[in-house]
């Protein structure tokens, strides 16, 4: 069998080429590996092994390719010449590879040993390095600690030096009197100690009275007789300044607590001494001032114990300062109220509690130790230290006994003056009225009975009597009993009606500026109307040529009070009131007008005062006048309705008992009532009236009505009698009659059990109306 040789040739060409290429690729990879990890001996070995294989592959492949090329070129002889070299090279490489393989194990062992040695060496080096690091660290720490300690020591030394030099003068002396160390302050005061290079004794540096004596502090401490010696030392400086020190000497020990000297410190007290002297002088001045002052001055501490009592206070209280010192304030200061005699509260306690200035009234009486009573005015204030803390109380008292007596005298004189004016005015008016009444009645009596002029003369007399009635009504406004009958109402209507009524027919225009939400007030409509009318009338008289009046109202809420007010401001633009007359215009019977009675503004003032309000006036001559009325606002929110008077078509007639102390009144009342168709009986006193009523009541014919006078001098009045009558028969109808028309009983008669009230003087119609109202 013949097999072709060409496949072998082809495979040789292709295989050699691929082998050659792979060999170079392996060489590249081997070199790369070697470069990447150049610390591995095994890898070095593999590199050599691979390199020899590569050389083998190159040699063989190149040889085979060359052979095939030469055969194709028909040059087999050339190949036969080269072939031995190629084969020898291959053999050599085989042998080298064998050698490498043979020595692999040995090299590997060496390698392993080397690795172990290396590891061991590295471990040893690592351990040694760590040990060295530890040692180094320890040494570094020690060095650092040492440096820190040295630095601390340096800083401590500097600190001590600073402290020593910042301290007051200080000197350290050994037991042989040698000065060891002094600070800067010491050197400044005693300059001899500036240089301590030589020997300097303490008595040389600062000679003193105690030097070389048994009282020398150093000697005393060295002998163990004292642990601390404090005394005063003095030094007069070169500039003449006198320095005073507190010298404190203490033992100076070494580190083993052995006494090696003394430390003497000097605290300068020159300024303190100066201040103490100044303070003492100040106290002396204060004491002298207090003793010389005209008012009484008492000071206490915070517990109310007396500390200072000046001469005037001694006199007023009756206590000497030595005796009063330290005693509780209430023990020496007895203050009672002038009117009640009740002991006044302790002002010191009040001041300590409030922390404010407290001013007492002028109605206090100081009862001294011997019982003497003096009117005093006092005021007190807390004494505060610079931190505003209360450290005591100062009370100033002044004897005002003489001043009060003088004031009362002046008041009496003024009252007499007022009463004189009032009495003069009343006398004048009543004389005029009485002249008219007496004249008309006298004239009527002179005329024959059938004369037709008598009724007109009597009518004139009646008119004059009614004027007298009006006058008495006005005068009653000033009386104590003239209390207003207050009802909650809006004052706006009263103002408008009153002003319009007075200004009717005049050439004066009245402008109103009254807010819709004006608060309600508790007022007596009649009295308040009278006030507005009087003021408007005043304004009208101030503007005879006409003009404008402005009435405005406003609500007022004070910031410091819960009470609300309304304000009524009435401004006219008339001739004004001279300033000199402004404080007299409210005096009764004071007038500048020929038409006025002088009672109008006085009545206004009285009414407003009784309404708990105020009336003020401001005026500028030629510009106008402004009256300002202030009234407290009502707490009610709804107006009270006015009672409606009823008209009675059918008149009733009854049995009526009249009680009045004035016979003339009883007579005229009986005549009027009889004239009106009633059966009447009269008595002059309350008890009799009660007895008569009781008898009639028990007999089964009781009185239908009793008319009682409110006040009976030296007897039972209507106020008391009505109670007894009503006790007998609660259904009894009683009318109260009085000339004190503004008496509270008259104002609130129903509250006292009366069915009606009748103001004296009364007329027939009025009496009939009241009687009918009661009988119905």
């Amino acid at each position, binding site marked *: 069998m013949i097999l072709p040789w060409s496949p072998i040739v082809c495979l040789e060409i292709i*295989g050699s080429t691929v082998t050659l290429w792979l060999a170079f690729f392996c060489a590249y990879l081997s070199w790369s590996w070697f470069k990447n990890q150049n610390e591995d001996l095994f890898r070095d070995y593999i590199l050599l092994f691979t390199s020899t294989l590569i050389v083998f592959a190159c040699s063989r492949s190149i040889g085979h390719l060359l052979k095939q090329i030469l055969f194709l070129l028909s040059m087999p002889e050339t190949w036969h010449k080269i072939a031995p070299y190629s*084969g020898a090279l291959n053999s050599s490489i085989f042998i080298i590879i064998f050698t490498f*393989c043979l020595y692999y194990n040995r090299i590997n062992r060496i390698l392993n040993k080397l690795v172990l040695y290396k590891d061991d060496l590295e471990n040893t080096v690592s351990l040694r390095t760590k040990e060295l690091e530890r040692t180094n660290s320890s040494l570094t720490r020690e060095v650092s600690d040492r440096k820190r300690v040295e630095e601390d020591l340096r800083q401590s030394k500097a600190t001590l030096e600073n402290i020593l030099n910042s301290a007051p003068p200080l000197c350290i002396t050994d037991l042989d009197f040698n000065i060891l160390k002094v600070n800067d302050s010491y050197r400044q005061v005693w300059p001899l100690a500036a240089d301590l290079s030589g020997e300097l004794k303490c008595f040389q540096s600062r000679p003193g009275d105690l030097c070389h004596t048994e009282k020398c502090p150093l000697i005393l401490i060295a002998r163990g007789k004292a642990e601390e010696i404090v005394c005063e030392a003095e030094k007069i400086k070169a500039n003449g300044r006198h320095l005073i020190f507190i010298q404190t000497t203490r033992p100076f020990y070494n580190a083993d607590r052995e006494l090696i000297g003394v430390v003497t410190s000097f605290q300068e007290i020159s300024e303190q001494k100066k201040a103490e002297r100044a303070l003492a002088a100040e106290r002396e001045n204060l004491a002298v001032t207090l003793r010389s002052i005209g008012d009484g001055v008492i000071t206490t501490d915070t517990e109310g114990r007396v500390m200072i009592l000046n001469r005037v206070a001694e006199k007023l209280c009756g206590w000497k300062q030595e005796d009063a010192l330290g005693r509780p304030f209430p023990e020496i200061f007895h203050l009672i109220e002038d009117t009640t005699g009740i002991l006044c509260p302790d002002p010191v306690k009040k001041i300590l509690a409030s922390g404010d200035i407290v001013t007492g009234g002028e109605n206090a009486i100081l009862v001294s130790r011997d019982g003497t009573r003096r009117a005093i005015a006092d005021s007190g204030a807390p004494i505060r230290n610079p931190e505003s803390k209360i450290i005591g109380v100062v009370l100033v008292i002044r004897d005002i006994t003489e001043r009060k007596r003088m004031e009362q005298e002046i008041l009496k004189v003024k009252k007499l003056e007022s009463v004189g004016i009032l009495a003069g005015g009343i006398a004048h008016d009543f004389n005029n009225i009485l002249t008219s009444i007496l004249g008309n009645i006298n004239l009527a009596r002179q005329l024959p009975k059938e004369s037709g002029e008598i009724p007109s003369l009597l009518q004139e007399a009646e008119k004059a009597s009614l004027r007298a009635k009006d006058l008495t009504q006005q005068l009653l406004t000033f009386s104590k009993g003239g209390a207003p009958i207050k009802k909650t109402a809006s004052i706006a209507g009263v103002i408008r009606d009153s002003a319009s009524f007075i200004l009717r027919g005049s050439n004066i225009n009245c402008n109103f500026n009254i807010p819709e939400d004006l608060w309600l007030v508790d007022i007596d409509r009649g009295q308040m109307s009278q006030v507005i009318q009087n003021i408007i009338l005043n304004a009208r008289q101030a503007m005879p040529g006409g003009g404008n009046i402005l009435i405005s109202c406003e609500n007022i809420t004070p910031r410091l009070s819960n009470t609300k007010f309304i304000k009524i401001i009435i401004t006219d633009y008339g001739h004004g009131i001279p300033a000199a007359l402004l404080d007299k215009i409210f005096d009764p019977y004071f007038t500048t007008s020929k038409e006025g009675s002088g009672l109008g503004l006085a009545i206004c003032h009285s009414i407003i005062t009784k309404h708990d309000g105020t009336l003020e006036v401001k005026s500028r001559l030629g510009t106008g006048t402004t009256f300002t009325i202030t009234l407290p606002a009502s707490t009610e929110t709804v107006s009270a309705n006015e009672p409606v008077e009823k008209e009675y078509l059918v008149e009733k007639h009854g049995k009526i008992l009249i009680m009045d102390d004035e016979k003339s009144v009883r007579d005229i009342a009986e005549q009027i009532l009889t004239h009106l168709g009633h059966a009447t009986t009269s008595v002059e006193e309350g008890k009799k009236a009660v007895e008569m009523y009781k008898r009639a009541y028990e007999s089964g014919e009781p009185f239908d009505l009793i008319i009682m006078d409110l006040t009976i001098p030296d007897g039972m009045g209507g106020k008391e009698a009505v109670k007894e009558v009503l006790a007998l028969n609660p259904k009894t109808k009683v009318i109260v009659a009085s000339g004190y028309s503004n008496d509270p009983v008259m104002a609130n008669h129903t509250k006292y059990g009366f069915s009606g009230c009748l103001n004296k003087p009364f007329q027939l119609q009025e009496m009939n109306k009241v009687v009918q109202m009661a009988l119905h």
Partner: protein
Amino acid sequence: MRILYNKYLLPISAFFLAGIPTSAFAFQQHGGTEGLVVHQIAHILFFSGIIIFYNRINRTKTSGEGWFEFNTSLLFFLIWNCLTFYGHWYQSLMEPEKFISVDGTTVALIVDSIWDIFFYISKFDHLILVPAFLYLSFALFKWRVPA
């Protein structure tokens, strides 16, 4: 490269390099008996070296990346070595007439026995050598990459 300084390696290498035979042939016909013997001994030494190396490697470094490829490469080299060793030996015994030449170039082989067929097959040794190098390259490729 420290391995080059080994005290045994250098003398052995020098001996074989200095003793290159004048007509030593590789897979080709060698000029004389000596050349052939030297080459065959070289093959035997190569075979022995690879066996020892394979054995040592498998005792020490068998795990890890690339070692399978490296061992496979060594096995291919052993097989190739056996194949070429047979080819060299058998060709020295063959009669020249068995090679049919045209103008001095062999074009066919007369095969009379199984040994001749083996010889013919041994001439396709690149089919073993190429995989050997291929696996070697795989191993090196894996080792090259740092773990």
